[in-house]
């Protein structure tokens, strides 16, 4: 373990074509066209500063009434079987599909924390099936930053702790570049396929279907903003209460002082000190992790929207100039 820790962390993720295909297949078959989430286990190996992901298998879907189903058991079984056929069987992370980039949430953080806690180099692959259908393969690898790991391990999400760790929404995850690697054989096959491809299909990515995508993104963004607003309101109320309590406390203390002064004048012993914390129980400030997550999510949406619009704008400009060209011709 010690040696592994000293080693430079994983710099990039090398993804096998097989994994990508399996991922897409899993999503297509079980994810109901991308709206349902699918998850699976990544297998691979750390080599130097890269994490090679060479295989994966999905978590089976099981309905709620199959409570006796043991996931861990299944995983162990699966990996043992894979080892028998001489495939990489080291657990290096997990993958999850997403719908319009909605993935930054509490369960993801928790499970990723667990992964990273037990297997340091493990990552989570986020696959966006919708984008893929539009011609952009979107697979991203994330892991929690060391700061986030430390923060999460304390399991204390109060404001104080957040400030102590200097935690912000953009410091929670770090994205690791992903490289897809195929065998030469596959590459040559691909080249072959490309040549056979029809001309029209090649320019699928130039599609200008802007609004529906943006609309959906906006809607989700709005939901997120609403949630954040609610969270902030909660926090605000709490602050207000704390303030009120503090006032009451101060009044109480002043009164106490006056009373004691009076008593001293009369030669009576001062009133016994009472535990202020008992009188004024410190209020629990709401955990702020959700807010952080929402912010992260909003950030994510914004990035998506901006990248999407940049691309769309680029396409538009291109289309415009093409049109002009066509007209001038």
């Amino acid at each position, binding site marked *: 373990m010690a040696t592994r820790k000293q080693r430079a962390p994983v710099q990039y993720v090398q993804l096998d074509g097989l994994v990508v295909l399996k991922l897409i297949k899993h999503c297509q078959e079980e994810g109901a066209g991308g709206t349902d989430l699918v998850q699976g286990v990544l297998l691979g190996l750390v080599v130097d500063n890269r994490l090679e992901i060479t295989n994966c298998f999905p978590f089976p879907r099981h309905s709620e009434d199959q409570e006796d189903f043991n996931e861990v058991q299944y995983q162990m079984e699966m990996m043992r079987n894979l080892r028998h056929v001489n495939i990489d069987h080291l657990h290096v992370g997990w993958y999850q599909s997403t719908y319009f980039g909605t993935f930054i949430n509490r369960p993801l953080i928790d499970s990723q924390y667990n992964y990273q806690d037990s297997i340091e180099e493990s990552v989570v692959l986020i696959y966006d099936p919708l984008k893929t259908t539009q011609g952009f393969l979107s697979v991203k690898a994330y892991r929690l930053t060391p700061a986030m790991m430390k923060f999460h391990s304390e399991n204390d999400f109060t404001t104080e702790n957040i400030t102590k760790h200097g935690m912000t929404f953009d410091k929670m995850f770090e994205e690791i570049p992903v490289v897809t690697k195929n065998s030469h054989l596959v590459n040559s096959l691909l080249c072959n396929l490309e040549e056979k491809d029809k001309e029209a299909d090649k320019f699928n990515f130039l599609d200008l279907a802007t*609004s529906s995508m*943006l*609309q959906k993104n*906006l*809607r989700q*963004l*709005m939901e997120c*903003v*609403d949630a*954040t*607003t609610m969270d*902030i*309101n909660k*926090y*605000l109320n709490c*602050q*207000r209460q704390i*303030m009120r309590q503090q006032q009451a406390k101060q009044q109480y203390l002043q009164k106490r002082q006056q009373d004691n002064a009076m008593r001293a004048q009369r030669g009576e012993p001062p009133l016994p000190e009472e535990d202020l914390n008992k009188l004024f129980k410190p209020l629990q400030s709401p955990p702020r992790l959700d807010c952080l997550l929402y912010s992260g999510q909003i950030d994510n949406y914004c990035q998506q929207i901006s990248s999407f619009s940049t691309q769309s704008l680029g396409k538009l400009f291109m289309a415009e100039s093409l049109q002009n060209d066509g007209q001038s011709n």
Partner: protein
Amino acid sequence: MSRFFKAGSDSESETESSEDDEIIQQRPSAAPVQSRTFQFSDDEDDSRRIVRSAKDKRFDEMTNIIQQMKNHKQIKDMANVLNDFEALIKAADKAKKVIQEEGVPRFFIRCLFDLEEYANECWEDKEWRKSISKNNSKSFTSLRQKLKKYIREKYEKEVNDYKENPDHGDDDKRDETPAPQDEESEDEVDTPVKAPVKPKLPAPPVIKKQLPKSMDDDDDDDDDIDWDSSDDSVESDIDDEQFDTGKLTAEYFLKKSDSGTSKKEKKRKEPKQMKLEETDEEGDWEEVKGGAPLIMERPKMFGKDQEINVDAVLKKLYEITSARGKKGTDRNEQIELLKELREIAETNNLGLGIDVKLYFNIIGAIFDYNPNTLTSMRNDVWESCLSYLQTLLNILIDHPEVNVGEHIKEDDENLTEAPLYVRGCFLTLVEKMDEEFTKMLQSCDAHSTEYVERLQDERQVCDILEKTLRYLEIKGTTLEISRIYLKRIEHLYYKFDTSCVYTGDNEPKKEGTSEQTMDKLCKFLYTSETPDRLRTRAILCHIYHHALHNRWFQARDLMLMSHLQDNIGHSDIPTQLLYNRTLVQLGLCAFRQGNIRDAHNALVDIQSSNRAKELLAQGLLPNRQNERTPEQEKIEKRRLFPYHMHINLELLECVYLVSAMLLEIPFMAAHEMDVRRRMISKNFHHVMKMSERQTLIGPPESMREHVVAASKSMKTGDWKACKNFIINDKMNAKVWDLFFQPDKVRDMITVKIQEESLRTYLFTYSNVYDTLSLHTLAEMFELDMSVVHRIISKMIINEELMASLAEPTQTVIMHRTEPSRLQSLALQLSDKFLTLVENNERILEVKQGIYPFQNKRDRNDRQPGTSAAFQHHTQGVVEGEGYGPPTSKSVTNNQHWNRRNNKNYSRESRNY
């Protein structure tokens, strides 16, 4: 026992001889009465002869117990009385044999009888029962029960016999007492009525023989009984005296000073007292004794030979009035007495002063007649009250030399000489009368002829008010004048006077209309030094009157200038109710004048709570959350306005709904695309929703259904259908004909419906048109071209309609400027971000130590333009739990209304 020896020696010797005979007599008869006599003699014997053994002892025992009981009874120590009684029963049981042989001893029966009476007496004295300790009362009840049972089971007959013939016992006692018991002599002395000694005395020797069983007991009992009775009589005597002296105080002496008459009176009163005691529910006999005698004495006021002069009459008056308010005082009687006294005074020509004073007292007594504030007067009493008031008023007016007033002290009264001074406030009487009048109206069914009959008295009441007003204008202080003015106003403001509604400006103003009267009275109140409450009420009445007579601008300006909206919440509840009434009337006036928005604003708060009835004090609504206590209900009932002052609630609701429809339908059409819909009138939406929920919607029946149906057709711009729903025979009968000039109102509504339908039509269907001809529109809505032009121009200016007018072709050209879905989403998002940023800022402000929560509202106001505008239009109604203090919401509403109106006001004043 030793006493007996001393005293008894003589008697014994005498008696012994006769004993034998008696025994003989007694045996055959065996009647209880007789047996007693023997017993008595036994006692005497016992006392002397210690030898007498068990039987004598038992009787002694019993007598002792009875004596003790007597003492305890005197101090009403029920626990001990109970103990004594139980001991007595035991003793009687022991002496059973003797009793069987001798018959029941008389003294024992008497004791039982007395005890029973005593118990009953105490039982009726509820107050006493309440006051005693728990322990005591417990033992008292058990005593009573045991006693009853005991008597019923064993000695019913004997006790009844005794009841019929109680004197025997007394006699017996006397016989016994003088001889043997010196100590008891005090008691015996008190019993004066007893008959001479009977021959039974000689019995003692016999007893010896018979004794073994009954005699002992009997003797003892008898003795006891004697004491009891005597004691009781003493007690009652003392009581009487005490009460007389203690309670009557001055009056009591007064009577005496009246010499002969008073004594007679007293005697006459006594039997009546007794009756009263019995009849009085409370059973509070002690008090009755005090209060009753004074009033009850009716037959003659003065002795025949007595000189009737002012002083005598005054004394008498004082005597009568001092019984006022006491329990058991017969109020009717008192009134009669006073009347009689007045007649006597009149026949004896005692002068105006006395007359006036007596009138005051009579009227006061009449008002006192009902002890309960809730119940109203009886009709005849009321009528007499009115007539008395009028007479008094006439006297006062005719004789300006008579001065009356509260400020005149009793001592300063001058009832005989020229500048007469009489204590008493006529204005108070008038006010009281007015109150009573309202109460009477409240108490009778509003739909009965009785109500109408009562209402006819309104004329008289007003008459009295007016006369009083004229009288006070000469004589009264400013405050008094203000008060009577206000009373007059309050009887004037809600009455519709056709003569003062302008039909046109050129018509000459008539004189003496209620408008001018109101104006005069109110202006006096505004300018003079009057308490705020009077002034507030005057203003409200004035506004109401203006509004009632379609003087919308005066009414509104007065409302705005008075700034009543700010602080009406601090005034008393009747004034708040008046404010609500005024506001409603203002709304109705605005509606009649075609100011739909104003009408809506004025009515919205009353209507939105669904408690219009309660807010206008026209009836009680069942309170869902918390049941009213009976007191609360009483109080609220007393606040209700009499029926003839009611504002028709259906009319009110209809006006509100129609104005809401005229505002809301175009508004809804214009803002169909908005994400967050805002409502102008929640109540209207509620009504609409309710009708949508129905599975089957038939042709409209009720007023509400009519409005709903009209709204639905207006939504599609079908103005004709809309008009027909709003204005038809049914609605005319229900609503519109209730207005003063229904045709004018109907015309106004029709025009409004046409205009608003046009607007709705444009909002709803503008997106299907590229251009629209003004001619077509004018034809469709049967409006003038100019009107259509005006409406469309206004909409364009207000940016409600994205279009432009093409003059040459007379068309409206639509511009497509509807935002796309994405755009509207982006707008929403920006809205949301704004709130987010704001919230965030607030957190920051807290961190910086500024305490910023106060200015939160301001910020909200500046945010969404529409909502702010909407808020400005809400206005305040005073509402609260059961007319209680207004809720904070209504206060803020008040502020809005105020703010808006200030704006309006300044704007309009510029226009003028």
